[in-house]
């Protein structure tokens, strides 16, 4: 039933797209329904395999409308984009990972708000919360979510797991017991790497956010993200402590802190699949499976197991942290709107669902299309989720969320400053 519905919505979107991009205020494009031969330029942060998968997912749109979707990916794309916007030649559509970036460009008047028909399509296809994250301070909606992430997932290699008879922990204390057991068995439990070019440090913020979600709950989390609870608050210190107690303990992490800070986040989990494994657990988003060794990716369901990072406080339980790129329009042309409308339909995710490595937020999506049992489980928890929160650092002001919250903990980890100094520095950098 769900599958049929999604196909119907998809077809409807394609028909609308083919008819000229719906209700826009572009007089030049009005009346003419034929978009073939036009081009939509899209810029985003993902490259290589993920860029190929994105291109595949856009093919149905291109075939139906004749519009060419030209994607260019760059790991430092957010900085590039700012330069391009300042210079007056931005791409038509940018896939912004940070809601703060969307709000900033919207406030500067660089973005065009979504037309009515696309917002209607969002209401029809997304669960609660997604439209709000795509809405700027002026109350207008600018962003469309396509591929999203689910974070706070702990992956492990099934072979070792089963051989040693480990069981998934449901509380933080059980997790500690498990870590001690693994260390006693001679393998440090965690594989951690946070190197990521200009964005080095984000992997640490995810851990802290998950710790915050699990220790202060939804309301406390929102206050922290909004800046009402400063970083110097005891609750934040507690969450940091929870994370660094694991990270800085050489018994718990493969390679120690110097290895953590120099190892790419995508390289680190590979050590879990060495023979014998150098470490076992990887706490990451769902996307990390596409960084696993190829042999593992080919046999994901048999080789990889997963559990949610366990609860700390029984009263709060195990919430879900999601993230995702939102597509925003820097150009007001019919083909751009047709493209964004396509992104709001489950159809836009189908090929990537089948290929694996991506999750989609649509409540109308066909979960059974995902290629692996893992992905099906992730997607189902997104569809069913009631307590969902967006990545906190992405929503903080850039000076913190992609600045000191990334760079200051690195100094903490390498031992050049203590926890109180770290928190004070982050708090001091919060724009007044």
């Amino acid at each position: 039933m769900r599958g049929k519905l999604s196909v119907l919505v998809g077809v409807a979107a394609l028909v609308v797209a083919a008819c000229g991009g719906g209700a826009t205020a572009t007089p030049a494009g009005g009346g003419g329904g034929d978009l073939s031969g036009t081009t939509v330029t899209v810029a985003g942060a993902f490259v290589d395999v993920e860029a190929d998968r994105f291109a595949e997912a856009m093919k149905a749109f291109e075939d139906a409308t004749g519009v060419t979707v030209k994607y260019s990916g760059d790991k430092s794309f957010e900085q590039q984009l700012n330069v391009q916007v300042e210079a007056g030649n931005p791409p038509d559509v940018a896939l912004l990972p940070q809601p703060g970036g969307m709000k900033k460009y919207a406030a500067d008047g660089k973005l065009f708000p979504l037309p009515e028909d696309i917002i209607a399509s969002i209401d029809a296809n997304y669960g609660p919360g997604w439209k709000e994250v795509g809405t700027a301070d002026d109350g207008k909606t600018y962003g469309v979510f396509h591929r999203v992430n689910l974070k706070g997932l702990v992956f492990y290699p099934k072979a070792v797991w089963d051989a040693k008879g480990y069981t998934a922990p449901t509380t933080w204390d059980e997790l500690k017991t498990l870590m001690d057991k693994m260390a006693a068995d001679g393998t440090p439990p965690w594989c951690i790497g946070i190197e990521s070019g200009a964005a080095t440090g984000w992997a640490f913020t995810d851990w802290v956010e998950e710790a915050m979600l699990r220790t202060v709950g939804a309301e406390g989390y929102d206050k922290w993200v909004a800046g009402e609870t400063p970083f110097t608050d005891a609750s934040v210190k507690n969450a940091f402590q929870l994370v660094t107690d694991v990270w800085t303990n050489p018994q718990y992490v493969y390679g120690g802190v110097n290895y953590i800070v120099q190892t790419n986040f995508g390289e680190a989990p590979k050590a879990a699949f060495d023979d014998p494994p150098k470490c076992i657990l990887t706490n990451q988003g769902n996307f990390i499976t596409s960084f696993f060794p190829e042999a593992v990716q080919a046999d994901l369901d048999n080789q990889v197991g997963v559990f949610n990072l366990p609860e700390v406080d029984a009263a709060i339980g195990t919430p879900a942290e999601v993230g995702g790129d939102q597509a925003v329009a820097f150009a007001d042309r019919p083909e751009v709107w047709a493209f964004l409308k396509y992104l709001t339909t489950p159809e836009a995710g189908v090929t990537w669902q089948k290929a694996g490595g991506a999750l989609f937020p649509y409540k109308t999506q066909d979960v059974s299309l995902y290629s692996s049992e893992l992905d099906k489980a992730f997607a189902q928890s997104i569809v069913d989720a009631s307590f969902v929160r967006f990545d906190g650092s992405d929503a903080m002001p850039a000076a913190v969320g992609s600045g000191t919250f990334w760079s200051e903990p690195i100094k903490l980890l390498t031992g050049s400053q203590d926890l109180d100094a770290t928190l004070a520095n982050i708090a001091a950098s919060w724009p007044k």
Partner: protein
Amino acid sequence: MHQAAEAPPPRGIAQVLAAGVGRVVVSIFVPVVAFIVLWAGFLFLKDSGAPKIVIVVVAIVWGIGGVAMLYVVANWLVEKLPPVWSGRILPFVFVGPAIAILAFYLLVPAILTGWASLFDANGKEFVGLDNYVYSFTNPDMITAIRNNVLWLVFGTLFSTGLGLAIAVLVERSRLDRLAKTLIFLPMAISFVGASVIWRFVYSYQPEGQPQIGLLNAVLAAFGLGPVSWLTGEPLNTILLIVILIWGQVGFAMVIIGAALKGVPDEMLEAGRIDGATEWQVFRRLIVPSIWPTIVTVATTIAILTLKIYDIVTAMTGGNFNTQVIATLMWKQAFTFFDAGRGAALAIILLIAVTPVIWYNLRQFRGRAI
């Protein structure tokens, strides 16, 4: 053109007037036509939907032809003036466009940046010197300034010093060409490319694992544990400077080597006959002869080290306290969207480079005299 110099034959007042008006009309007509042609070319380039190749060809013809036309027309106009005035104005016709372009692309942006540095993150509220106060009190900035000083001193000293030493030594070797080629090769590699190579030199793996980094592999061969080269300060900044030196020694060597060839052998021989040691010949004869070249090389590298950005970004992303002013400027301006602080850092960088450029220019002038 020479009418003004010759005594004009007596003419009726009407004739004089007609000739004068005609000349003025022509003098106005020609520049107007030239302007219209240039403007039409500009409009075509701006709005045309013509194929790219046509636009490229038109742009080249328009650009080069336009400049030539401007010169010819301006020259023609000025030569119509009395000789005293044409002599005065002509230099400006030739230098003027260069100065105008320089002002438009360098001076105006520099002034605007200075102005922007006095405003807040969004460029809306005037904050006076707050951004500069921040720049000199923030601990990250103080570390960055320290690092820039390390880059300036060690980078310049070793690049130039090694370049000079190699140039002098290699000149006496039979393997002159080969050695120079090998040392010059890294010049062909961009700093980002060089950083990729050097990441493999400094790479760190936990103890007991195979070391893929050259330095740690050497340590392992001697039975020593691995060192995390890039995380320990201030050694990590020095190790990054080594990459710059590796890339720049070739440049220094080639330029200084060329200057060495110009030092007359007779002078050196005379010195040796007079009983000077080889060191004295080097110190008292060779170095003074090529001093302007050494200064030019050193200042070029000094400016490079002050604005160094790519090696740091590619190697450490500015983490582990390896940040320099340029990486912080980029972060402030393009990651944190803080236009004010970004501009302030740019101005600080500009001011830091100025004395070096000034010294370099003074040397140029000295040489001309």
